[in-house]
């Protein structure tokens, strides 16, 4: 178990700046996720922590020891690769035993620990198979067993579920969570899937173009995004460019397309803003203390038990998600519709130049 600290990590590849100064603090026994779109630098961060790449600037600490330039083989931060990187010329047993043999453990000890690892990932009886004789999910379990068997200080998982089908993905997700809880090790997890990140993590760092946008628990990240990017990245949401037209202390009135929303909380000085409203927080029924905006129905999308109504407000499309019941049956494309929005569900964030 280890605490990981990154201070001002900068990494460039030729002309491109991959990481623009990353500060992170991952706590003991935490399952911490780096989340972001492809190319945001999350894998580079992971590789730097694993010792497979080295930063141009900045420092990396495991507990109080600086390991920035320590070689990968001496770090004890073991990585499970996205493609699993199982050695095709070795059996499952030899793959898992590899790290133990490197550590020159006695033979009985190796056997004991490989057995333990196989049990942990529920692969007893597969010792003599070769990786090519395993399914994707089994290969991944071997990769995880191979990493865990050396009792790493830190387990690094690089998009571990991206090569699995949807059903297996859910299964392995809870499996990883179970193992992490059982062993109580610190895990750093990398993914581009926000749903996966929210389901599995203690805390999440959302990354974008080489920077960390926000660190927090899944709930914080989802419900209180600090930036426009985080808001738009975490699930389907309405991000509407708008302008502050009135201010009174922390309360502002914003305007978009001739629609005004008043009494919203906003502290930043920038008058160019976006308003963020989750589709499921928009009501099609009148509610108390809500702002009401009326526009045209542009499109109705059926998902079964819920529907999404795309309303057209001037030129702006806003999505509302609602239970598919009798109350919405009257809606027709091009017909009139009123969205009711609770002010507490509206976030006003400064416009980001993306």
């Amino acid at each position: 178990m280890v605490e990981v600290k990154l201070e001002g990590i900068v990494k460039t590849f030729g002309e491109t700046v991959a990481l623009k100064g990353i500060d992170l603090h991952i706590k003991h026994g935490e399952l911490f996720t780096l989340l972001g779109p492809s190319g945001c630098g999350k894998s580079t961060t992971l590789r730097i922590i694993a010792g497979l790449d080295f930063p141009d600037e900045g420092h990396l600490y495991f507990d109080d020891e600086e390991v920035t330039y320590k070689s990968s083989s001496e770090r004890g931060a073991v990585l499970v690769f996205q493609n699993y990187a199982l050695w095709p010329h070795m059996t499952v047993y030899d793959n898992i035993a590899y790290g133990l043999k490197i550590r020159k453990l006695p033979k009985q000890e190796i056997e004991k620990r490989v057995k333990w690892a196989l049990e942990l990932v529920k692969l007893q009886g597969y010792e003599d198979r070769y990786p090519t004789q395993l399914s994707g999910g089994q290969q991944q379990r071997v990769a995880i067993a191979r990493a865990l068997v050396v009792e790493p200080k830190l387990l690094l998982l690089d998009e571990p579920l991206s090569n699995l089908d949807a059903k297996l993905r859910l299964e392995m997700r809870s499996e990883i969570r179970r193992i992490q809880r059982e062993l109580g090790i610190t895990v750093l997890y990398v993914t581009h899937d926000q749903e996966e990140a929210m389901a599995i993590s203690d805390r999440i760092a959302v990354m974008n173009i080489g920077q960390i946008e926000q660190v927090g628990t899944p709930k914080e990240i989802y419900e209180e995004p600090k930036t426009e990017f985080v808001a738009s990245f975490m699930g389907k949401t309405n991000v509407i460019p708008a302008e502050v037209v009135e201010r009174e202390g922390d309360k502002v009135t914003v305007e978009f397309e001739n629609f005004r929303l008043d009494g919203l909380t906003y502290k930043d000085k920038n008058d160019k803003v976006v308003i963020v409203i989750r589709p499921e927080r928009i009501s099609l029924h009148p509610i108390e203390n809500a702002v009401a905006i009326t526009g045209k129905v542009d499109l109705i999308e059926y998902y079964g038990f819920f529907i999404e109504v795309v309303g057209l407000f001037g030129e702006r499309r806003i999505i509302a998600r609602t239970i598919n019941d009798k109350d919405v049956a009257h809606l027709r494309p091009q017909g009139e519709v009123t969205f009711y929005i609770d002010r507490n569900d509206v976030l006003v964030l400064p416009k980001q130049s993306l």
Partner: protein
Amino acid sequence: MKVSKWSERLFGTPLFEPLVAFSYIFPLLYLIVFLIVPVLSMLLIAFTYDGNISLHWFKSILMDSYYIQLPPQGEFAQKLTTSTGESLYLLRGLDFGVVLNSLVVAILVTLLTAILGTVFAFVMARYNFKGKNFFRIALFIPLLVTPFVNAYVIKQMFSEYGLINYIFHEVLHILPFRIKIDGLAGVVLAQAMAYYPIVYLNAYASFINIDPTLEEQAENLGSRGFHLFRTVTFPLALPGIAAGATLVFIFSLEDLAAPVVFHGDPLAKKLMSYQIFSKFIYGLGERSPEIAALSIIMLALAVIAFLGIRKYVGLRQYAMLSKGGRWKPRISEPKPWQTLLIYLVLLPALLITIFPQLGVVMLAFSERWTTTVLPQGFTIDYIKEMILNPDVRRFIVNSLVYSGAAVILIVLLSITSSYATSRFKGILSPVLESIVILPIAVPGIVVAMGYFYFFSAITPENSPLNPTSLYGFNPALVLILAYSIRRLPFAARSVYAGLQQVHVSLEEASMNLGASRWKTIIGILLPLISLNAFGGAMLSFVYSMSETSVGITLGSINMAQAPITAFMKEVLMSAAGSINIAAALGVLLIVVQITAIVVVNVITKQRYSFIGLT
């Protein structure tokens, strides 16, 4: 430890690692010392006159009508009459002077092989016909290298009473007169027949690798037949065809076997390769600046062709643009006129071009071959003699030892250089990548001359390492070095391809789990590329056994330590032994080559990978 900027720049590793540095420096230094420096040492001699830097030798070559003869002299074809009163056309070619002759011959051979190779490749890639498997196997036969003897058989085939006149004049009466091909025309013929499968293999691979949907789309838009071929298929295959053709150009330029065999006609001697060779043989011990200059001219032509094709192919990698998906190969039944073409033109052409190798085998098992169509009298005396006579066996043992030693070096060089260039992105990577395949572009005779000047300059005067030594030069080291340099590209390409198939994460996973780089290479990388290394090693071995240029020059100074090819050349040039013994050695080489092909195919389950330039 802190990041080392110069290590990152040079070797692509932010932390300096001796093993990685070695992977760069060992092959780099080896090639610089044993390829670049020897060749450059020749430059020094070629550009020196009266102790000053001068273009004198180049000027004297380019001004001399012996070297440049414009307009050309002689008659391309002469009409003669045989003793029996039949008319005979003797084809020898025109004399453009030594330098231009080499160029003209190389260009003609390149064009002929390009056409023949492309036609064969297209037919094999796109049509189903009876006997296709025979074609497939037969097309490999001309690739079996039997130095000198196969050119000898070609000379016999196209002589006055040879096989060609027998079939086309006496039996079929297609030719109203007899023909005889000699001189430069004979050289062109012998080279074209031996080299066209190189274009074939490269072109075939190109045709096979074209995404069928590209052609289907063109058809869908209304293109058909020759228009489709001209506008889509051919342009996509052109980089591969051009790469194969360039290789042929370089091979033709440096070839010594055909000129040596046809040297009875003085015109065949007027080629750069032969001139360098003969001046070396007859003016031994003399460090002639004129020869150095001629070597430089030859090298320049080969290198220009090599760099040109690399640039061209590099610019046109579009054949690989397509996305995945399973390809349904475009194979169809030939139309009647195409069937006719296959059986009436391609089949005879194929039979003629595989005859030399068959002829070599017949020659090895026969008593004599003088004025008859085929060799006469079956005997196994020559095979026996090759095995039992210690004077002949010695050459075989020498070649085995030199080739074996060279292969060990080649494997080490291939693995280190491929590891460095495929895994790290230091500024030395592209340098190393180019220098490792550079030997393809350096004619063997130029390597031989470079070594001659280099080793006679740096070794003590009468030491066994000095080619001008009076007390017996031992060519072992020089030959091993020359083989290891000249045949390196074969193995290096194979190992590099293997490394590219092994994802780098397999090595990272090992190091991440605590293994050192050395342990990772030994335990993970080498087992995964061993088949590629083995295949490459076999190929290098086979072509070291049949290496000609260095073997018949430096290798023949001291016959006690000479390789097989030096002995074969002796037989052909001095009539010291019988040609049948040379043919027996040719058969031995064929056996070695076929064994290698079969073993590589069975063990690595890969197609026998022949040479390409890309």
